[in-house]
């Protein structure tokens, strides 16, 4: 177990190192940040001075090594545009992203698991067919379109919910939270639902497939024969055995949600890291882009790590080796 852990940790570091290199090379193609900062009619000396101020006058390998060195000492660089540490810019916006991702996960689980179990246990029922059709839509409709439609219907036509922004927030341990206020909660609903859509559909289909397979197993009939109620069999014996592929997918989905939040945040003007990323790409603000990608890569790696650790707990037959 310990060897396994160490091996995974070394892999993690290598993956992150590769990410920094790829990202840094990509950066050289995204444009010249100096020209996004100085007025276009600046004298060459002003341009050169700005370049030196940003450390961009050095050759790329030197810049990369300097960046890595800074990284090791905990310095993630300063945003060219905001003149603030890139890490603090991202950390400042991270709670907003985590918040909609969290709500999206809750929505997805609350909708997907019960419906998936139902559709798997009674595949022939009309309600199950409706659910499956719905899930197909959830997978195939593009998120930005759904987001715009939700805004049109619930904000513009019905006036039930606000169209954009974060609304009132309450500081919990210094971190602003929207879901703690009524206004904030109203602002969370549309983006979170939009974000959760494809995850809900995928989890639902995974749950259903797992349930269908489990329903055919002998132990299910045996349990029923033993006198366990139908609901008891489905939820206690069936679901638990159908769950392990769902957990794997769920883990990957959490990573996807953080990454896909980019689109949802842009549509709903949700002030999270995804929107920051899009804006930073447009402004060629390299340090912010690098820190964002590093952070997302770290999260993916960590989530996968946690998922791998969860298997043996869910299914004792699997051993971490």
């Amino acid at each position: 177990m310990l060897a396994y852990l160490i091996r995974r940790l070394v892999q993690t570091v290598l993956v992150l190192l590769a990410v920094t290199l790829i990202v840094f090379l990509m950066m050289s193609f995204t444009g010249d940040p100096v020209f996004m900062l100085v007025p276009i009619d600046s004298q060459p000396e002003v341009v050169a001075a700005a370049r030196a101020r940003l450390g961009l006058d050095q050759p790329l390998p030197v810049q990369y090594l300097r960046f890595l060195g800074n990284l090791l000492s905990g310095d993630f660089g300063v945003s060219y545009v905001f003149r603030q540490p890139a890490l603090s810019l991202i950390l400042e916006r991270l709670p907003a992203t985590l918040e909609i991702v969290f709500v999206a996960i809750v929505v997805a689980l609350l909708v997907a698991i019960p419906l998936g179990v139902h559709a798997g246990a009674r595949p022939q029922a009309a309600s199950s067919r409706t659910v499956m059709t719905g899930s197909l839509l959830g997978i195939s409709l593009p998120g930005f379109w759904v987001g715009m439609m939700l805004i049109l219907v619930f904000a513009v036509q019905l006036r039930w919910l606000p169209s954009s922004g974060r609304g009132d927030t309450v500081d919990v341990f210094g971190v602003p939270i929207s879901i703690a206020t009524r206004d904030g909660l109203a602002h969370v609903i549309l983006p979170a639902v939009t974000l959760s859509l494809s995850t809900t559909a995928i989890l639902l289909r995974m749950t259903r497939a797992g349930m269908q397979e489990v329903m055919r197993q002998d132990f299910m009939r045996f349990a029923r024969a033993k006198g366990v109620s139908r609901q008891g069999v489905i939820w206690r014996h069936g679901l638990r055995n159908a769950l392990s592929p769902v957990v794997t997918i769920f883990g990957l989905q959490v990573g996807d949600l953080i990454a896909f939040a980019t689109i949802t945040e842009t549509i709903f003007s949700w002030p999270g890291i995804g929107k920051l990323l899009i804006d930073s790409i447009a402004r060629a603000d390299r340090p912010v882009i690098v820190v964002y990608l590093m952070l997302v890569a770290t999260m993916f790696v960590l989530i996968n790590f946690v998922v791998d650790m969860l298997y043996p707990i869910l299914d004792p037959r699997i051993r971490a080796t």
Partner: protein
Amino acid sequence: MTRMLPLWRAGMLALGVSALAVGAACAKELTIGMTSDASVVDPQAGEELNSTILFYHIYDPLVRRTADLKFVPGLAESWEIVDPTTWRFKLRPGVKFHNGEDFKASDVVFTFNRLKDTNMAELGANVASVMAVDDHTVEIKTPSPFATLPNKLAEILILSEKNAGAGPDAETASPLGTGPYKLEDWAKEDHITLEAFPEYWGGKPKIDTVTLRPITNPATRTAALLTGELDLVIDLPVRDVDRVKGENGFSVVEVPSLNNMVLALDFRDKSPTIPLETNPLKDQRVRAAMAQAIDIETIRKVIMNGFSTPSDQFVPEGSVGYLPDADFHKMYPYDPEKAKALLAEAGVGDGFEITLDATNNRYVNDAQIAQAMASMLGKVGIKVNLNLMPKSNFWGYIRNPSEKSSFIMSGWNVPSADAGAMYQTLYYSRDNDKGYGQVNRGSYSNPELDKLVDAANATADVAERDRILKDATALLLKDIPMIPLHYEQDIYGVRDGVTFEPRRDKYVWAFEMDVAE
């Protein structure tokens, strides 16, 4: 009974909230939908529209630019020319910074000195030195006579010496100006709240609280206007114009922007993207032919949906050096037959190949305009290859001197309303010790124009400068160093009850606005 308690509490809460709302009803509020968040609050840290809009709420310049490009007293009450390179500005007495401290000449001196080491140093290029004569008089020296100094000063915002002098990032941490609004709250990417500064020298602002909300997605911006979350949106997308007009309680306001779309042409002997021994663009007839091959009216109608104003000259009407009754598109009207004849006359009747560099995310419909022009020029035998790229790559790609470009489409605006500023930057011969021609990407060189610009820069009299620059405008219209296309239209969506006059410079300014009770 216990289950009723939360409901009861919620009821009390609702009562409390509505009581608050009643209390706030007499305070006027305005929420503006911006295209993006401001990136900095320190006016010397960067330049970009959304930050600039924020700057002008918090800070004041010495000279103020009005909505229709007039230049009137700001923090300076009056000014006079002492000798051709020395100006004396009388500062407005009784002006206070937001922290209650008096605004003094030393703040002006400090502001100009601090500017020198920033990315925005170019703004102060026309100022050699600033000296405080007494607490309310400053003397500004220019390196050479500069008749439109006051226009240029409208772009320099005055900081407090005590505040910004505290450290390189002090202004960012706690911005302090003399402007009509104070920065109250800035939740990054969500909202900026500005509170009226009651002791503002221009009078207490009519609107008490202004909220700037960045909404990058244009469709969401429109939706937020229609739901009543916003009172005003900047850059209403063209496709939503009819929708907003058709809705009760909203209207659409438009004004030609200052942004003149221009086509830069290469004047070097050999041009990088033209596979010919000599560069055909050096012949004025070829440049005229290209201008006559472009149907600007069709671009306006079909691509811009009517939201553009064909540019008559290089600078808008009202600018110093604007030539009344001269119109580029009347001098070179759309006429493909004439264009072909001109090309034949110039010895390139078989046409030639050229690459057009343009952005695809910077200007309104930039990529479509480029495509349309490629097909229009194709009809007279000029094969245009398109090289479209996002703006973050574009500026570095076409940077001066541009070794890769022959033909560039970009926008240019002159907020100082002075043709001289544009001509010396874009058309003055390069490689001179004056440092002019910084953005002369096509290496245009015309000794006559250089002479006129020098003459304009030798006088401190604005009327004379205007006269000289009018000659320069006439010369340039004939010589075609660039082809002016059109001014984009700025489009705003406004809720009824909001008093709003659009500004030519697009600097939406709540101090000039009002909302109905």
